[in-house]
């Protein structure tokens, strides 16, 4: 096929167009939660540690990990997400596992026609580096975790960046949601107990599996590492060059799932409708969220790096114990009720929320 014909074919398939990557933040450029700092992964198989935005590590074993977005990457990239074993667990129980996972929102896969005879094939490309060579697996599974595809890859050389390209045939069966819930989970196994092991590779199967029995257990030894970057999942059976998008675009995509609202000084104003009750103006998110998000608010107080309510003459009132909020996908309005311990406001007047120095409201709508 001539180069012109190849190009025409790529354009026709949609692969040559921008925005081809179904993975968000595949180059690990956005790290809103940790800004490159290391953190300890909390044991548990629910939402625990997000390394670079959208890449979550789940740890459910006797091992302990630290995770960090680091400045170590193959040529053409600046960052990778890194897992380091801090406490080993060489013998995993049947339901124990460790994994890195990115849930892909269903709204982003509606063009794939998965679950039908027109299901499109995808190609996954990524760079991986580990201190432990051997057999590894990725899995693709649906929201209900009743359809799974296992694909293997090997890490051939220790502590060396290797590029892997894996074809993922679309599933013609099962239910793959196209809502704001997870449509596809893409997962890298780092060790899996027998309950989640299957010997069926390269074909969809009913149930939920993470790897075959020969999967490396990264946690077998202390200080073992595993790193990932340059993740791209695109329509078609050809892995094309990684699509580097501008930082602002990647950040906005990440902020559909998580956002930091940085505060300093008088940040919100409102009214006090009794001497103990207040209601503030709405905070508007930078990006509309996937769902109404959970808010983690700064410490309430009157000292540095806290937030407190002030009355109509800009003096602190007696602070309460909590901040409440009416939350939607587009914003939130903070308020309290009479049982929360605030006092000293002026009835039927104005009030404000004052941040003494820098504080952060964390807005979480992750899957």
């Amino acid at each position: 096929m001539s180069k012109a014909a190849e190009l025409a074919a790529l354009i026709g398939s949609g692969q040559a167009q921008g925005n081809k990557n179904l993975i968000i933040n595949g180059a690990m450029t956005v790290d809103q939660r940790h800004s490159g700092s290391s953190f300890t992964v909390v044991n548990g198989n629910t939402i625990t540690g997000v390394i670079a935005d959208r890449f979550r590590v789940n740890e459910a074993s006797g091992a302990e990990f630290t995770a960090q977005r680091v400045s170590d990457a193959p040529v053409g990239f600046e960052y990778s997400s890194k897992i380091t074993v801090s406490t080993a667990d060489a013998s995993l129980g049947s339901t124990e596992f460790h994994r890195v996972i990115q849930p892909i929102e269903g709204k982003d896969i509606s063009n794939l026609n998965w679950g039908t005879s027109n299901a499109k094939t995808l190609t996954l490309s990524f760079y991986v580096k580990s201190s432990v060579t051997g057999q590894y697996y990725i899995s693709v599974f649906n929201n209900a975790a009743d359809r799974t595809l296992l694909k293997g890859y090997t890490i051939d050389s220790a502590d060396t960046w290797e590029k892997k390209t894996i074809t993922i045939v679309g599933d013609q069966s099962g239910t793959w949601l196209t809502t704001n819930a997870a449509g596809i989970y893409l997962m890298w196994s780092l060790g899996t107990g027998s309950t989640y092991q299957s010997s069926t590779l390269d074909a969809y199967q009913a149930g939920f599996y993470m790897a075959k029995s020969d999967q490396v257990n990264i946690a077998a030894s202390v200080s073992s590492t595993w790193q990932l970057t340059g993740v791209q999942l695109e329509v078609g059976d050809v892995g094309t060059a990684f699509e580097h998008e501008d930082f602002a675009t990647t950040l906005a995509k990440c902020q559909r799932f998580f956002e930091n609202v940085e505060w300093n000084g008088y940040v919100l104003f409102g009214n006090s409708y009794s001497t103990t009750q207040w209601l503030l103006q709405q905070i508007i998110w930078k990006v509309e969220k996937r769902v109404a998000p959970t808010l983690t608010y700064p410490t309430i107080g009157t000292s540095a790096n806290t937030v407190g309510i002030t009355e109509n003459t800009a003096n602190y009132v007696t602070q309460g114990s909590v901040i409440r909020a009416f939350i939607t996908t587009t914003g939130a309005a903070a308020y309290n009720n009479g049982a929360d311990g605030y006092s000293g406001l002026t009835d039927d007047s104005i009030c404000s929320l004052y941040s003494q120095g820098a504080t952060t409201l964390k807005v979480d709508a992750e899957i």
Partner: protein
Amino acid sequence: MIIENAKWSKGPPPQDDVIVGFLATIGGEKVVVPKEVGNSQYDEAMRQVAAGELTIADAD
């Protein structure tokens, strides 16, 4: 996910008789969780409630 000190929360006026979410401590930090299926913390809390692992106190 360890959810502690969970308590249902009613809305601001004029919705001050409507449960709009719950207040809790998650990972040592105070949070406001909206009553919305699909929110990961809300879904996890409901799973823990169904499993008898979590009790959410009545609203004030």
